[in-house]
């Protein structure tokens, strides 16, 4: 047990931490209850005036002290700057990223979807690299794909999607269109949709072995058993061959979007397969299967009236003016049937539609990752 006076003699060592462990503890405990000693400690610690005892000031020491004080100021300012940068960084990382960019666990979902979709839509392909580029305000998920060829791998390309503060952007393949052309998903749509999970908006094409009536197609579109939107209807024209003798590819059809505008497709595609003839009413979007047929007839008629335009728009294998005329004649009958539908909606709803439609062929055309960037027709 040390006395009050003994403790005061030990205060220098307490500040310098040069006391042994027990003595340090004893001084510490005494200071907690001794205001006088704490006051003395305040005098002991900050300034050591012993150098001034003789009254003379060492100029060199003074200059050094001033220099040291200046350096301390500079270092303090630098530390504060670093602390400020760190604070901004921390806010970006731990507030903006989790609370805004990744709200509702979007990042994990987007990452998984990007990865899964890339593999799903490129049969046989392997993901060679999965990269997540994260900044304060966005995340970009990139999947590099390769195909095994012989003993090596050939790069297919990469798919990337961007998760921003507000929405979800297709940083390069967000909707995976570049890979849709190589799809070989006959009969696999159901498996693919189940893998996508609920919440994803997909666009699926179905074909029927035999044309179904327009009434049946409309019934499928309006069914209360599922909530999908029919965005395209295809009408068979291969049967026109029997009448005209002109060669039609088996399964040939013309169709029209029931809500997509023609401007969403390139001219060649639209001109040849969707029977767009241009003209003032092409921006009219029929809301029913019957309306789509009306538009197909109108478009074909327009092409018949303007053979030059038909030749210009139609791809060689798709339509000579004569074939277009025959197709129009065939489709002008009251109910030529519907051979294909393209529907869009949440995966769970599309699965319900597929069950009801009993189609013979299905294919996933596009997937809108949670409909974050480009709204699919009607959603």
């Amino acid at each position, binding site marked *: 047990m040390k006395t009050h006076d003994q403790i005061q003699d030990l205060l220098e*060592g307490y500040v310098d*931490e*040069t*006391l042994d462990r027990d*003595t340090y503890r004893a001084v510490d405990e005494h200071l907690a209850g001794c205001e006088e000693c704490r006051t003395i400690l305040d005098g002991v610690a900050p300034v050591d005036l012993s150098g001034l005892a003789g009254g003379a000031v060492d100029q060199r020491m003074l200059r050094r002290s001033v220099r040291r004080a200046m350096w301390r100021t500079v*270092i*303090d300012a630098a530390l504060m700057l670093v602390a400020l940068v760190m604070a901004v960084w921390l806010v970006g990382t731990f507030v903006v990223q989790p609370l805004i960019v990744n709200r509702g666990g979007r990042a994990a979902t987007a990452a998984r979807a990007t990865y899964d979709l890339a*593999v799903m839509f490129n*049969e*046989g392909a392997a993901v060679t690299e999965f990269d997540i580029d994260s900044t304060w305000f966005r995340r970009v998920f990139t999947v590099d794909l390769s195909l095994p060829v012989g003993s090596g791998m050939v790069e297919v390309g990469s798919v990337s999607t961007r998760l921003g503060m507000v929405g979800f952007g297709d940083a390069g393949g967000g909707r995976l269109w570049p890979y849709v052309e190589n799809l070989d998903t006959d009969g696999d749509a159901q498996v693919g949709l189940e893998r996508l999970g609920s919440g994803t908006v997909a666009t699926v094409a179905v074909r029927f072995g035999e044309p179904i009536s327009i009434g049946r197609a409309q019934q499928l579109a309006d069914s209360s058993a599922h909530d999908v939107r029919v965005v395209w209807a295809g009408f068979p024209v291969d049967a026109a061959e029997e009448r005209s003798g002109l060669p039609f590819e088996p399964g040939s059809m013309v169709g029209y979007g029931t809500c997509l505008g023609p401007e969403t497709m390139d001219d060649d595609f639209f001109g040849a397969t969707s029977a767009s003839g241009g003209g003032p009413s092409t921006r009219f979007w029929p809301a029913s299967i019957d309306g789509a047929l009306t538009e197909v007839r109108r478009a074909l008629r327009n092409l018949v009236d303007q053979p030059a335009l038909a030749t210009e728009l139609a791809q060689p294998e798709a339509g000579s003016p004569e074939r277009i005329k025959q197709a129009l004649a065939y489709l002008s009958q009251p109910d030529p049937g519907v051979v294909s539908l393209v529907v869009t909606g949440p995966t769970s709803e599309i699965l319900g539609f597929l069950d009801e439609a009993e189609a013979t062929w299905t294919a996933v055309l596009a997937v809108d990752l949670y409909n974050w960037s480009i709204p699919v027709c009607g959603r």
Partner: protein
Amino acid sequence: MTMFRQIKRNRRIVAGTAVLVMVLAVAMMTIGVLADDGPGVFQAIATVAALALPAVFALISLDRRPSLLPGAVMAALIAGVLVLELLPLWLVVAIVWGMVARTRPRPAPEPRWAWFGRPLLAAVVAVPILLMFSHLDPVCTVTYTDGRVEQVDAATHGYPTGWRFSFGTYTTGSESVSGVTAQACSSDTVVWWEATVSLIATAGIVLLARRWPTGNQLVGPTQSY
């Protein structure tokens, strides 16, 4: 604020942040161990021990070794550079400890050799980490549709084995192969012998830090009453 309160506050800050770092390291590795493809428990312990070294330095500095605290700051920065994922954490901790060291009432007494010894001691925190990741031990697993998980030769997937420094870059891959649901590869895992050697090195470094001279050793024995 009185000097007494400042001294007490500084000690609490250093102890608090050091313990916090240790808790975070333990929590991080616990999450890793619980993950399906995470490291084993022994490897996790070795990793936590290596990552906690700067915090251990800070705690040791509280035991009459104030001149070791700047060493803990340097060790934190080195650890941050080596394990970039934890850089923000180490930067914050280094700044906090640096501020505490700067607000000491008087500079800690120290001999000239401490100017070289301190960075050297800080630099050795890299040793246990380097020991764990300087030998590549890739692992690839295949998960089949029936739930079986098998380890396959990583070399055939292009992952090299041997002495080459690389941090545990985790890469996963997936192929559309019939009967296979997923393939996953890790370019480097911590194997038992790496964990053992790393743990021994960590223990050695802690003992070395404990040898850092205390304040009374630097200025001679304190007069006792």
